[in-house]
């Protein structure tokens, strides 16, 4: 494949932990080998599954995250084959601690960059602890602050597996830095990511430096926050919209809109120009705003609100995103082909570059490239 990493050989032995990183590398032209045990990568066991296709080729997670890569099957005990595949690797992605498997004890080419994505890192009292997307969020301070007060706290966008993807993207940053360093010095090195730290790094609001500053115990507040009003999610005809009004000009525009649309003369009264007063009278403000929002759809509110200069966005569902007019005009969506040749829509390149950086091919069948690398 072409692309900026054409000719780079990457071996990925992880499941979800590294998959997003190696997906990006494959999209940018690297030869990405997914080393699979005979029963297949753990990614292949993740549903949803495509109907009419037999396992282990039917996982949509595999079909998406393994795009552009090559599948080489090796028995984990087969040191000889392992040595052969790893011999030419520029980068090796792992999600195991050293000395916990054949692979992790394997001597590798000193030129190979070894990138490890680990639950709690290589060192520290919890180095042996296990993790998951949920556990990483629990250990970051974010889970505790998300959800409604009368319900158990919830992980942010749990099904999306953000903690894994943030770890993978961080691992890729480290890997690219290590590759640059290797080019400049001729010497490889190891890259380490702790999933807990990857989650902590995207969660400074509940982090220790912020807490030291205000000493305010963060707790969950449902889908609105008392930093301002309106502030948070508001119901509309077909779901919810998100409205964040903090700045005076945003309130002026918002209150005008509510006044015009619902014949509400009170909301434009001077007293409510004070954000603190609005927070104090939040139930009233929320009722007034909902009178407006409940008359319209997400997209109507988005377009009209933005036209008026108000920070408002739709709370999009997957369905709404796939139907979104901007993304369609932007030609964002691409397709991939499943093992039965069904064409299916997928998100396109994560960024657009003036140089031709991105191209993709479908995910490989189990062992599709084994012979190519082992014979």
């Amino acid at each position, binding site marked *: 494949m072409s692309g900026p990493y054409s000719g780079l050989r990457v071996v990925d032995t992880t499941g979800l932990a590294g998959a997003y990183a190696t997906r990006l590398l494959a999209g940018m032209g690297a030869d990405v080998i997914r080393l699979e045990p005979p029963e297949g990568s753990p990614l292949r066991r993740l*549903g949803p599954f495509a109907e009419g296709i037999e396992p282990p080729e039917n996982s949509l997670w595999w079909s998406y995250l393994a795009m552009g890569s090559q599948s080489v099957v090796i028995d984990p005990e087969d040191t000889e084959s392992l040595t052969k595949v790893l011999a030419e690797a520029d980068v090796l992605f792992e999600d195991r601690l050293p000395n916990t498997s054949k692979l992790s004890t394997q001597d590798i080419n000193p030129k190979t960059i070894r990138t490890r994505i680990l639950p709690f890192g290589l060192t520290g009292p919890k180095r042996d602890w296990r993790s998951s997307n949920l556990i990483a969020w629990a250990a970051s301070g974010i889970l505790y602050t998300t959800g409604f007060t009368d319900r158990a706290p919830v992980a942010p966008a749990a099904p999306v597996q953000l903690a894994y993807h943030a770890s993978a993207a961080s691992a890729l940053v480290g890997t690219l830095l290590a590759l640059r360093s290797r080019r400049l010095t001729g010497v490889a090195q190891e890259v380490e990511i702790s999933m807990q730290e990857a989650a902590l790094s995207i969660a400074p609001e509940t982090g220790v430096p912020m807490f030291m500053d205000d000493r305010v115990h963060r707790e969950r507040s449902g889908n609105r926050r008392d930093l301002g009003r309106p502030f948070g999610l508001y119901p509309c005809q077909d779901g919810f919209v998100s409205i964040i009004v903090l700045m005076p000009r945003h309130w002026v525009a918002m209150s005008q809109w509510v006044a015009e649309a619902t014949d509400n003369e009170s909301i434009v009264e001077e007293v409510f120009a004070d954000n603190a007063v609005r927070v104090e009278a939040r139930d009233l403000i929320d009722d007034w705003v909902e009178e407006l929002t409940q008359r319209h759809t997400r997209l109507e509110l988005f377009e009209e609100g933005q036209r008026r200069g108000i920070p408002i966005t739709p709370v999009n569902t*997957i369905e709404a995103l796939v139907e979104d007019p901007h993304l369609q005009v932007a030609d964002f969506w691409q397709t991939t082909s499943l093992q039965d040749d069904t064409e299916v829509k997928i998100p396109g390149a994560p960024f657009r570059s003036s140089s031709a950086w991105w191209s993709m091919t479908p995910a490989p069948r189990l062992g599709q490239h084994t012979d190519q690398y082992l014979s």
Partner: protein
Amino acid sequence: MTVTETDLPLNGIRVFELGIAIASPYCGKLMAHFGADVLKVESQTSPDVVRILGSAWLKDRDDLAAIASDTSPYVSEMNASKRSVGLELKTAEGKAAAMQLLAECDVFLANFGARALVDLGFDYEAVAAVNPDIVYVQLPGFGSNEDLPYYPFVAWGPNQAPLVGMDDFTGHAQDPPAGIATVAPPDYMSALHAAIATITGLEQRDATGEGVHVDISQFETTLALLGPFVMDYELTGTVHTRMGNRSMWGSPQGVYPCSGDERWIAISATEKQDWEALRAVLGSCVDSDFDDPLIRVSAQDRLDEQIAAWTAGFESEDLAGRLQAAGIAAHIVSTNEDLLHDTHVTSRQWYQVAESTRLGRDVFTNSPVKLSRTSGRWTGAGPSMGQHTREVLSEVAGMSAGAIDNLIAVGGAFEQIDPEMTTTRPWEDWIHLLLPGTEDARDL
């Protein structure tokens, strides 16, 4: 210049950053840590929002109001090791000086709105005109193509996550979306993609001599994480949405109450061997039919109730340790107080302390990216606003002292205000508790 093995990978790279809040600044912070000279170009007339935030303890200190903009903890959190250059880009003189700097930079990094960059005259074409091989990376909300419908729209922080589907995926199945008030994944995922694009662009430039323009629409970048859900919707019409803390791939997984007020534990035991380990600990506290994985999924409410009844008898920290010792993924649901005495985190040097002109020293979190040989550096905490204006204009743009004086006099640039006015954070005496080797910070 000879490169030695311990030279940082971005040594010699200079970044011109027009950053607000998080998306661009977080990328710049990573670049600075790994050796780049990151110039945070700031304005007094339209300052970075973290300058406006100030800090909580300073709110009633009228005597220190003039320097409040240097005291938000986000200043260091997002801008450690950068240099702050005060330039008013809306003035002809300030803009000209910025262009002189840009001619000497390798990377342009910005998360200003796409239209704002055009209006300022810092769109790709304008910057490439003074520096043709620049690596130009921008992170607008909706991309830089002015023909697209949402091009002029504004979306930041708390509004961006719902837009890209994150809020709809958050909460318990039967509840309204819970929202993700305290975390903004699109900002950080865009920042990480910007770092990936920047390093890739630098490698390309070094190899071919050609720069690149990378447009990171925060909308599109975060959607790239939703592939399997888009595919399933296209194939079957299924609209995947929030499902609490449960897993799509097995059961049990959840957040369960422990003894005490608002004490919780998160447990993930979705695989067969996880269940066997958990069952060995739970014993007869759960019904025996749960040994069937299909029943664990079909009767999750009953299973969760039984697990919750069991966890409620334990202190969360003890239970987490006990479950992990049995090989089960578990962790307390950490509050910010818990994080303060998370000795695992502190043992890994997660908190860093560096010099601050205004505050003496300041604390910020380390890079989550760890490299074994070129481990990075922190040359300072977040800079004071305009702290490096004079040295950067002199050393990088080659301006004379007189020219810099003139530029400041006409309002094209500014320097740090009241440099003699310094203070310390109220918790200055306890900073050492965040560093490894000290006692638990619990008593802070």
